[in-house]
């Protein structure tokens, strides 16, 4: 039960009756108590309400969706009062409280708009109903469980790069045939030699037949394999600007997958720290983006040290054929030198490895600090961090690993560029 402001107001105004004597006050209190009891008895029954939800189950981060709550009154009394449809705070539910007025035997639709502020599954908490009596002195209050969950997908803000990347892909594919041969390239056609063609691509047999110099052309490789490995360990929780490293990695992974799927390559996903958090394999071209986005939605950075050995063995087990492993992690000196590098051997032996890390513009900005002691010490610390990064990058490159270390705003674009570069060079 719950009392209303009206009850309190009546009791407070009752103080004006005090000069008339205690009998009046006792009478007023008795009347008030009786009114409260009457209200409680005559208020609509909450157990008779039938609640059901419908509406959106997925949305992208930053967009707004509506979830509808259908309130049916199966009782004999009118249900009048307020209803709070509670969601977790990051679901951004509005309005907080609905007015409710459902005559007996009827139904009402309450719309709740959600503007989530975080990725992942945003769930509804209990629905609390408070029905007031005819006098407006007291209310019944009870909770209903009406479970619902909205999956908030990554925003994929790097979509803006997609047209440009696809244009580059088309330039690679078909329109411009390559004369260089790599694994997975297919023979396309024979054509006349022009100045600048690689002499190694001359087809001597055809040349002999035709009497003019003929070169073979190749279509870029297709049906290559690409594995996006997401490190969800503690280093992925660190924020660059206002977004965690993991979110920047997810964004880049989506752009890369979209381009790779268009190029005809197969995309797999593995997210792990010290256990495997998500694994997506065997996707057809059409379902790449929906399935990846769905798998990514629930990924959260965990505060544990990730296990590169586990990730390497999982990739090796999962991918029998040669593929490109794009490993999204952080180039912090200690985790790379003591975790990643010792475990990397078996992976580089069989696959092409690209390590992608989001650089922090704040460190570069700190490195330019001058003028006073605080600024110069900051610059020194930043230079130290940058030197560590250079050392780690150099070590990785010596081991035959490709490294992309770019700030967050162009990160997705640069990772995709690296992939396209490998594709153009026939190194996939």
């Amino acid at each position: 039960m719950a009392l209303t402001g009206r009850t309190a107001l009546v009791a407070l105004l009752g103080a004006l009756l005090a000069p008339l004597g205690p009998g009046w006050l006792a009478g007023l209190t008795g009347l008030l108590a009786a009114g409260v009891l009457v209200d409680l008895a005559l208020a609509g029954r909450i157990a008779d309400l039938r609640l059901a939800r419908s509406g959106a189950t997925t949305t992208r981060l930053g967009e707004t969706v509506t979830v509808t709550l259908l309130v049916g009154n199966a009782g004999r009394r009118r249900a009048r009062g307020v209803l709070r449809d509670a969601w977790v705070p990051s679901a951004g539910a509005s309005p907080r409280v609905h007015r409710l007025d459902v005559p007996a035997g009827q139904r009402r639709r309450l719309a709740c708009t959600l503007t989530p502020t975080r990725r992942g599954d945003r769930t509804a908490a209990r629905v609390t109903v408070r029905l007031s009596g005819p006098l407006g002195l007291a209310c019944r209050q009870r909770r209903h469980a009406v479970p619902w969950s909205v999956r908030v997908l990554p925003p994929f803000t790097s979509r803006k790069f997609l047209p440009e990347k696809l244009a580059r892909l088309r330039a690679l594919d078909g329109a411009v045939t390559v004369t260089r041969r790599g694994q997975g390239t297919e023979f396309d056609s024979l054509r006349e030699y022009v100045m600048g063609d690689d002499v190694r691509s001359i087809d001597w047999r055809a040349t002999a037949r035709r009497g003019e110099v003929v070169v073979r052309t190749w279509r870029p490789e297709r049906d290559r394999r690409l594995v996006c490995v997401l490190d969800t360990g503690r280093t992925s929780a660190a924020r660059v600007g206002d977004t965690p490293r993991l979110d920047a990695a997810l964004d880049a992974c989506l752009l890369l997958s979209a381009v790779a799927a268009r190029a005809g390559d197969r995309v797999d996903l593995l997210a792990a720290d010290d256990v495997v958090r998500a694994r997506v394999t065997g996707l057809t071209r059409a379902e790449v983006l929906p399935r990846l986005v769905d798998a990514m939605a629930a990924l959260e950075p965990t505060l544990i040290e990730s296990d590169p050995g586990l990730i390497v063995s999982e990739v090796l087990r999962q991918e029998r054929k040669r593929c490109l492993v794009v490993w999204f992690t952080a180039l912090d000196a200690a985790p790379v030198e003591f975790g990643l590098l010792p475990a990397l051997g078996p992976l580089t032996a069989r696959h092409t490895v690209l390590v992608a890390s989001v650089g922090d513009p704040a460190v570069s900005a700190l490195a330019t600090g001058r003028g006073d002691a605080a600024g110069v010490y900051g610059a020194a610390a930043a230079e130290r961090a940058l030197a560590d990064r250079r050392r780690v990058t150099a070590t990785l490159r010596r081991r035959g690993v490709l490294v992309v270390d770019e700030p967050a705003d162009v990160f997705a674009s640069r990772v995709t560029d690296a992939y396209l570069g490998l594709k153009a060079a026939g190194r996939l």
Partner: protein
Amino acid sequence: MTGTATGPSARQLGLRLRAPLVLAGLVLLATVLIGLAQSQQLRGELDPDATDPSGSRALRVLLEQQQIPVRRVAGAPEARVGGVAEDAGTVVLVAFPNRIPTEALRSIGSTPYRVVAVAPDAAALSALTDDVRPSGSAPVVARSPGCAAPPAVLAGEVDLGGRTYQAHPDTAEVCYGGTFTYGRTHGGGPLVVIGSVAPLTNERLGQRGNAALALAALGAGDTDKPAVEVRWLLTQPGQAGAGQAGLLDVLPGWVPLAAVQLLVGGFLVALWRGRRLGPVVAEPLPVVVRAAETVEGRSRLYRRVRATGRAADALRAGTLARVVPRVGIGVAPRPEAVVAAVARRAGQPEPVVATLLYGPPPVDDAALVRLADALDGLERAALR
């Protein structure tokens, strides 16, 4: 990135509570001001210790200069019993006779002491004497004696007014237009009735004959019975009534009842506001760790221990990493080769460049700042 609060934010809450808070502040301020004003008043009028204009510390000082001690007494019994001499020379100054119960006044009036009463009303006066009666009131102005009583003759013109009194000429002397009367108490002691506090206050004691009149009224230098002690009867507000009348006795009977009802109402308000519409929804939040935090922490550590050497090494390493690839002398050159190449490219003398790139660590923060600027200059020149 995330918000947890579903309810009003602190700002909204502040706006919502602004009016009640301002109101509460005003009420508090008014209470404090009224309290201050009242305590001022309590300390003030005719108090032998008060130094404000309406107090009477000046008179007390004058008396004590005349070797007459002033004793502050709070009640009639205290004023009456025990003294230096049983009847001779004890003076009782009744500052506010109207606030003292009649019986108490009568007990004072039945002693042989000299009694000085300031502006008593009819009831108080009849408890002290039968000789003098109140007759009316008059404004406080400068007045001349107009009688033969020794204090009045001595004092001459004084500031008097307030209540006026009349008396039979055989039994008492009426001076200053009835505002100063000289008679006898029931106990036969001399009685001085003054119509207003004016001549006794700090503010006016120094003017005209006020001080002389006050001293003479209190029996200082009296030929007949010189004063040896003044008992200054100043009643506290709590002792005004016959018993210990508290606040509850003064208030009407229904006020406690109304207070109880208000309490009940307040309790109901608390119940109304305290009942939440459903529980608070909890949610696990992501950690917020900025990627640059370790770098900033290291910079603060450097600064705290003044690690000029390490900081300089880091800055030099950064400059070398940017400059060396541009001068084209291989991957792991010796320092001498680097100095020579960089000096040539930057157009700066070799010893200067050598000190900059491989010199001793700076001695203090200022030297480190200068080194950083010099390295910047070298880098700009070399990368031009």
